[in-house]
């Protein structure tokens, strides 16, 4: 175990997997620019490459390389830049295996930061996982701690499917204990980040931190909140969530994405089908409002979920108050 920053844990996973498997290659824009680059020094220009601003080709090339025996990691920096290449990510990478009747595979990791809620305005602050988590054949990973960041990335690199690995920009400098050496977290296993009895809070990515802070605050009011991090949105571990709801009877979903394009909406639907008999109150979603992300601080704060909004939602669900949509 070693204390590490989230961003460094991500780098550690890439280095360790590249050391382990020569078929792993790594490329993207604005990286490996000089011979002093540590990744370049370690693995050479053949496996670590610099790419121009060409997302369609960057992602498509990764698919072609994956079809023919490599395991590319594409550094896309910001999840919005994936949108430039959405055909490749949504309608190419996850289709090949199925269309070939299982004859080929596409082991590729599309890595990007998401949700930079620091005044990056409308085009660089988004949470796009909802539009990817429902694509059969594609896996979607959203780690919330340094340890998860490492273990989930290593597993993503070893996975034989295309994986979209989305790390929160807001967590980059967060510190936490990270196991040394080989450390794998299976894709599709949620994690109970805090146990509690009165309410289940399911939170994603950066929101896990906010949910834990809210749970701490609620504890002072005598409310015991369980906090669950799905960690991967595809596959989605519905069982862990439903099992928690069977204990608490109440569910609050926290998601940085706008309400109708949130993973929260999908989880709410799953729980309403599989956990309806346990619910003692309506499910509450604490999401971003249905607007683009604005630039100015008060506007951004108003739109995004935060600790206070989570606390309020938990209080209202315990009082079983109805809310206007």
């Amino acid at each position, binding site marked *: 175990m070693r204390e590490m920053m989230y961003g460094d844990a991500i780098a550690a996973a890439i280095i360790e997997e590249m050391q382990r498997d020569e078929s792993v290659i790594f490329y993207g824009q604005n990286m490996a620019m000089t011979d002093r680059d540590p990744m370049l020094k370690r693995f050479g220009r053949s496996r670590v490459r*610099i790419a121009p601003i060409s997302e369609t080709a960057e992602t498509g090339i990764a698919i072609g390389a994956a079809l023919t025996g490599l395991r590319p990691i594409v550094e896309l920096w910001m999840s919005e830049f994936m949108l430039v290449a959405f055909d490749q990510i949504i309608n190419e990478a996850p289709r090949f295996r199925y269309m070939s009747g299982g004859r080929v595979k596409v082991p590729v990791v599309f890595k990007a930061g998401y949700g930079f809620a620091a005044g990056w305005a409308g*085009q660089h602050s988004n949470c796009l996982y909802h539009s990817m988590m429902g694509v059969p054949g594609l896996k979607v990973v959203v780690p919330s701690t340094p340890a998860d960041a490492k273990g989930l990335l290593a597993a993503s690199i070893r996975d034989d499917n295309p994986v979209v690995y989305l790390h929160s920009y807001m967590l980059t400098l967060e510190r936490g204990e990270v196991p040394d050496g080989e450390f794998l977290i299976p894709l599709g296993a949620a994690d109970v980040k805090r146990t509690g009895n009165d309410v289940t809070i399911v939170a994603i990515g950066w929101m896990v931190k906010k949910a834990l802070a809210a749970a701490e605050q609620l504890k002072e009011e005598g409310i015991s909140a369980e906090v669950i991090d799905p960690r991967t949105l595809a596959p989605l571990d519905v069982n862990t969530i439903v099992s928690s709801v069977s204990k608490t009877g109440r569910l609050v979903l926290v998601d940085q994405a706008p309400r109708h394009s949130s993973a929260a909406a999908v989880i709410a639907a799953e729980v309403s089908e599989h956990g309806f008999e346990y619910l003692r109150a309506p499910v509450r979603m604490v999401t971003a409002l249905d607007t683009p992300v604005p*630039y*100015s601080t008060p506007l951004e704060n108003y739109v995004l979920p935060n600790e206070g909004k989570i606390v309020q939602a938990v209080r209202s669900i315990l009082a079983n108050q109805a809310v206007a949509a």
Partner: protein
Amino acid sequence: MAAKRRWEKDRLVWIYQQMVRIREFEEAVKRTFIEHPQVIRGHAHLGDGAEATIVGSLFTRKPSDMVMPSYRCHGYPIVLGTPLKQMMAEIYGRKDGLCRGFGGSMHLADPERHFPGTSGIIGQSIAHATGAAVSAQIKHTDQIVYCFFGDGASKQGAFYESLNMAAIWKLPIIYILENNQYQAYTHFSLEDANAMAGEPLSKKAAAFSMPGRTVDGTDPVAVAEAVGKAARRARAGKGPSLIESKFYRLSAHGNVITVPPLPTQFPEHEAIAVYGNRAEFEEWRAKDPIGQFRARLIEQGTMAEGDAESILQSARDEVAEAVRFALDSPLPAPEEALNYVYA
């Protein structure tokens, strides 16, 4: 004859004045990160070094022509006459900002001045500008479009797709490729096939059978001459041109990218911070387009030294007023965020 000389003299001094206004504005934006930490959020990108390209190009513009640059967008509206105080208030996220605090530095828009808006996603605005040219063509407005983008953007699919369509539809547009030599942090020689082969980036024009020319982007008169020719072609209905204007970005790509509340001021230029090449940076700083043009106008007797000083002083006053206005302007009310999602 005397009248004509006088006219040209005024125009050259006008070019110099606009260049200075842009520089002073950008310097103030940069200083804000130190003097008023966290007032500018997100990512801001400056046009220092690009002044000759911006002003030289827009010098050839007619009042109704459209201007569509990238997210490095401060310089253009300054030339178009957008009030600096509204621009600065936007960059400071204030209620009185040009876009009411919704867009910030990367997303200035002033449609009344034929500046319809910018995109923060590299290269995508090339398609939008091409669409503005379709609008001008269909409506027979006699407008042309000045489309500015960086060397990095010329590696995007949107660049290739748009230039081909502009060529086949003979659209009234000028593609001005601002080769500031760095694609964010990457030197252009590491990511451009033409550059790697020792060729100018304007060679890309041949792929679309349109005129392509490379011009000294530190010289506003040279830029105006090349862009003027492309403008005449566009106005005559003969279609698009590609101009590579080569200069040097004098500041880093943008302010430091980090998680608040860590400081986000501008780092050193990539030449130094990434490549350890101070000599390259100093060499180009010596070719600062503003210093060069100032010296030339004074030497030619076009501008008196005193006039240059008063131009600088009045630009500084104008920018200081803009900063004061922006700092005094209130932040928008939180609930405002629900506006403008739909028209």
